[in-house]
């Protein structure tokens, strides 16, 4: 990382308006510090000679534009991240949803799919997978392609297995995948109830009604206005008595929907009560 970034604040604004005008991708409601860091990182990584060249490449080269979007959005995720959160899903939330004839779950901002497979494992162990459907969405087609391959780095499995056990998992975690060299390929049945699809939280509308919506560590990248719009979208997409799950530092407090939601003790999970 350069000490004085080559990408200036005004450069960020120029790129954001290019993306909006040319490609219809609206990043103007994103927090700037993180975006700027990631744009600077890509600029340095790809050894751009000047901002003008960098900008031209994004505008002119479709493949590079894809790379740009992939690189400026954060796609870091884990399986069973925050084990106590998954324990609450396992012991409290999903058993309640288990009384429904059919369970629809929306995982918004699913990135490379680690959480989708984690939830699929929970549903399978609760014997609910056969009557569930997980809509896993992201604005970024490249990460969805990766997610659909159901292969993750073998080097992560020790950590994931520990997370899984801490979250209340009782099985041998390695029974869910086949190891081949450096990759762990997850069993096909886990994917059978996941639908991977693009959805842009900034510009796309509600597309179904769900009993559980998970969107963890996405809102932190949005400014307050956009956060409130997205929470409205979730509210419109959630059935009465459904659950909304956010990241450990995110909240519905201070939003327009706050008064209709009641938080579960200890976790960033809210139930729609109004």
């Amino acid at each position, binding site marked *: *990382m350069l000490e004085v970034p080559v990408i200036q*604040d005004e450069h960020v604004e120029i790129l954001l308006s290019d993306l909006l005008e040319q490609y219809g991708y609206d990043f103007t409601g994103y927090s700037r*510090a993180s975006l700027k*860091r990631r744009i600077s990182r890509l600029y340095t990584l790809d050894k751009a000679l000047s901002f003008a060249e960098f900008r031209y490449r994004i505008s002119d080269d479709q493949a590079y534009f894809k790379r740009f979007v992939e690189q400026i959005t954060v796609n870091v995720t884990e399986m069973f991240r925050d084990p106590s959160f998954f324990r609450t899903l396992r012991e409290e939330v999903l058993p309640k949803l288990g009384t429904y004839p059919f369970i629809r779950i929306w995982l918004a901002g699913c990135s490379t799919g680690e959480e989708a497979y984690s939830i699929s494992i929970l549903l399978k162990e609760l014997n609910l997978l056969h009557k569930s459907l997980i809509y896993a969405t992201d604005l970024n087609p490249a990460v969805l392609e990766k997610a659909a391959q159901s292969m993750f780095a073998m080097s992560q499995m020790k950590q994931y297995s520990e997370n899984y056990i801490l979250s209340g998992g009782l099985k041998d975690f390695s029974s869910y995948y086949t190891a081949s060299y450096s990759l762990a390929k997850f069993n096909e049945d886990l994917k059978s109830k996941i639908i991977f699809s693009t959805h842009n939280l900034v510009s796309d509308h509600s597309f179904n009604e769900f009993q559980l919506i998970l969107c963890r*560590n996405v809102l932190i990248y949005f*400014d307050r206005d956009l956060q409130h719009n997205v929470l409205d979208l979730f509210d419109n997409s959630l059935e009465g008595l459904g659950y909304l799950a956010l990241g450990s*530092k995110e909240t519905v407090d201070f939003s327009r929907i706050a008064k209709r939601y009641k938080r579960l003790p200890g976790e960033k999970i809210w139930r729609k009560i109004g």
Partner: protein
Amino acid sequence: MEKDRLMEKCKALIIGGSAGSLDVLLKVLPVVRPDISFPIIIVVHRKHGTDSLLPVLLSTRTEMRVKEVDEKEAILAGTIYVAPSDYHLLIEQDQTFSLDYSEKINYSRPAIDATFQTAAEVYRSQLVCLLLSGSNADGVSGLKSVKAWGGTAIIQDPETAQVAYMPAQAKLNVQIDYELSIEAIGDFINLLP
């Protein structure tokens, strides 16, 4: 090491530390007068999942308000903010905090570099950053940014650090303004304009 220049009014003090830095904080905070006119932002490496413990521990050593950062929170003077574990802490141009869950930097999240660098661009010459004891080089590149934008770079005297590597690396690579013993840090903070 001491330099003669009229220091600008301090708008923010950021303290970064890793192994061996908690002891320093526990010694320094009681000395800091509670009516200082700037915020203190603390970024220390620690284990994920022990979130509320550090702010509680620190609050027993000071009368200042101590809190873990909430995302999008406005940065106020006279408050001690602690970076949450497992998120990078960034400073926005409108002097609010934002959080980021991108890749670890120097094997660390939060990374001191990320906070120093984003703060450097916001507070420029009115930023003071202090790097404490630690066993990796996180914070060094951040201090370079602080200097590049005109801010003040301080390290704990490596001789007084439980783990000297982090401040020693800064000393090797950055033009440091002040190198302070643990005893001197509190007095220095109290004298900041």
